[in-house]
């Protein structure tokens, strides 16, 4: 923990201000449409951060993560509708189920390298979507095939995870994102993080150094799928109506991967930058030209990806941290260093 707080004071101040701003945002923004966009930006940053555990650190490119969003959404919803269980409980159940499915898929596929793993995840993701589209019910659970499920309105409460206003949703997903980012930070600075990075980059060398690469990749996959599904439940409760194409489709899987690649894979800041840039694009194209050209946002993403990869192959996180370092952190640190030194002296 001390290492986390052991940053330059200007970084701590900036982070504190950013957090304060984020927590005050719902008070300043009253438009529900705008709030919805903010919520979706954070939700996609969350999905991409959870994707990052496999896609960023384990060195493979999963392109079927909407399957786990869908598992989270469907599990909590059917548990709510069949047994009246709180979505919070359903969220946990969905997470565990997603982790299990993730491990089952990961055991054979994580041994594949590069494009082969990516193709396998597309196949599995699409397979799950087609399966759900063709099944009306599983045992006592009604999933209604292609027409999807709508969640009935209930009272405005935390237990029911339904609210009249956007602000509670915003706070919940914001806190979920912060927790996932903290988890990411601790993982990056632990044995698992080092082993994942090593196994992702040079599997042969990693094995020679005593790392059972496949085991660590499967652990990463389980964590990633579990956390992604928690977001899936949140998403279901936010939109209250979903169908296989909307929540299990490739669109969402691709968007998550696009955000990660454009923002910066395997970094903490990358998913946030990517989501900030891409989410508004897809919302705005959907609102204004969605009827004429559905899927235009993916074309725009592709263009942005080509441009970003051409100049910053590590993602936007590269120029952004460079600029922050050069113009903000260094400029303010000169004076701050003196202050911290004297402060540290006093503390000793």
């Amino acid at each position, binding site marked *: 923990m001390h290492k986390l707080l052991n940053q330059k004071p200007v970084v701590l101040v900036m982070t504190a201000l950013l957090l304060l701003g984020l927590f005050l945002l719902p008070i300043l923004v009253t438009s529900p449409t705008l709030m919805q966009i903010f919520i979706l930006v954070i939700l996609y940053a969350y999905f991409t951060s959870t994707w990052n555990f496999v896609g960023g650190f384990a060195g493979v490119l999963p392109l079927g993560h909407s399957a786990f969003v869908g598992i989270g959404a469907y599990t909590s919803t059917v548990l709510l509708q069949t047994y009246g269980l709180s979505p919070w409980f359903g969220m946990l159940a969905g997470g565990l189920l997603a982790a299990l499915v993730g491990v089952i898929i990961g055991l054979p596929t994580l041994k594949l390298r590069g494009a082969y793993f990516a193709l396998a995840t597309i196949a599995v993701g699409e397979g799950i979507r087609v399966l759900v589209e063709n099944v009306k019910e599983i045992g006592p659970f009604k999933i209604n095939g292609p027409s999807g499920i709508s969640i009935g309105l209930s009272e405005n409460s935390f237990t029911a995870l339904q609210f009249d206003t956007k602000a509670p949703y915003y706070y919940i997903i914001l806190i979920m994102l912060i927790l996932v980012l903290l988890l990411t930070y601790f993982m990056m600075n632990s044995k698992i993080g080092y082993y994942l*990075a090593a196994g992702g980059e040079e599997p042969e060398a990693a094995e020679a*150094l005593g790392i059972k690469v496949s085991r660590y990749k499967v652990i990463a996959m389980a964590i990633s799928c579990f956390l992604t599904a928690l977001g899936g439940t949140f998403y279901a409760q936010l939109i209250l109506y979903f169908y296989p194409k909307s929540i299990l489709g490739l669109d969402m899987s691709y968007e998550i991967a696009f955000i990660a690649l454009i923002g910066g894979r395997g970094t903490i800041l990358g998913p946030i930058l990517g989501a900030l840039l891409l989410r508004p694009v897809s919302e705005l194209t959907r609102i204004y030209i969605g009827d004429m050209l559905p899927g235009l946002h993916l074309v725009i993403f592709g263009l942005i990806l080509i441009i970003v990869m051409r100049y910053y192959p590590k993602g936007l996180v590269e120029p952004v941290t460079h600029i922050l370092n050069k113009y903000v952190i260094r400029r303010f640190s000169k004076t701050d260093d003196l202050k911290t030194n004297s402060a540290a002296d006093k503390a000793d």
Partner: protein
Amino acid sequence: MPLLEVTNVTKKFSGLVAVNQVSMTVESGQIVGVIGPNGAGKTTLFNCIAGALPPTSGSIMFNGREVAGKKPYEICKLGITRTFQAVKPFGSKTVLYNTMVGAFAQTKHLHEAEHNALEVLKFLHLDHKKDIVSKSLTLPERKKLELARALATKPKLLLLDEVMAGLRPSEVTDMLPIIRKINEAGVTIVIVEHIMQAIMNLSEKIYVVNFGKKIAEGVPHDVVANEEVIKAYLGDEYVATQH
């Protein structure tokens, strides 16, 4: 009891016999060399010992335990670590990060791993480069990093696969005392090498392989005088001119 005892190890790749009934013994504390022309099967033999390839038949005893057919990560945990002929650094990571990956074999705590890794880097005089991203290192530095990472796992036996290949003669001269120093610190070493100067200088005992078979073994001085070895390296006609 020898530290490593390889008995009649054979490795076949669908018809091609890369290693044919090779036996060798390594005592604790020794530096043992394995030489042979290109394609002789040296690296394949290494891969069998390190677990990268399972041998087709034969036994490999390490410290009294059968290790033939075990996975590389299991063998590393038992105390054998290898370096690669074509160096494989974790390119996007720093020298320290690379070495810490090795050090995590002995601990799960970040600080302890960092401490141990720094010690290894100091031992190899690489500590001034600790924050350099490993893909921007020079070749001799990468070779040293390969050593550092392997040493950080605290092996009993270190398998060095051509650590000096591609180095300039002056760089080879720098590398020799480092390898000797590692050995003096208590690590047994098996070294595959093309550079005769290096291997003659370092090894107590040398095994010569050609076409997958062991053709000679003994102290360096005897091995170079061996007819089979001269034939293997220089061709039949040179044997006569020697005498």
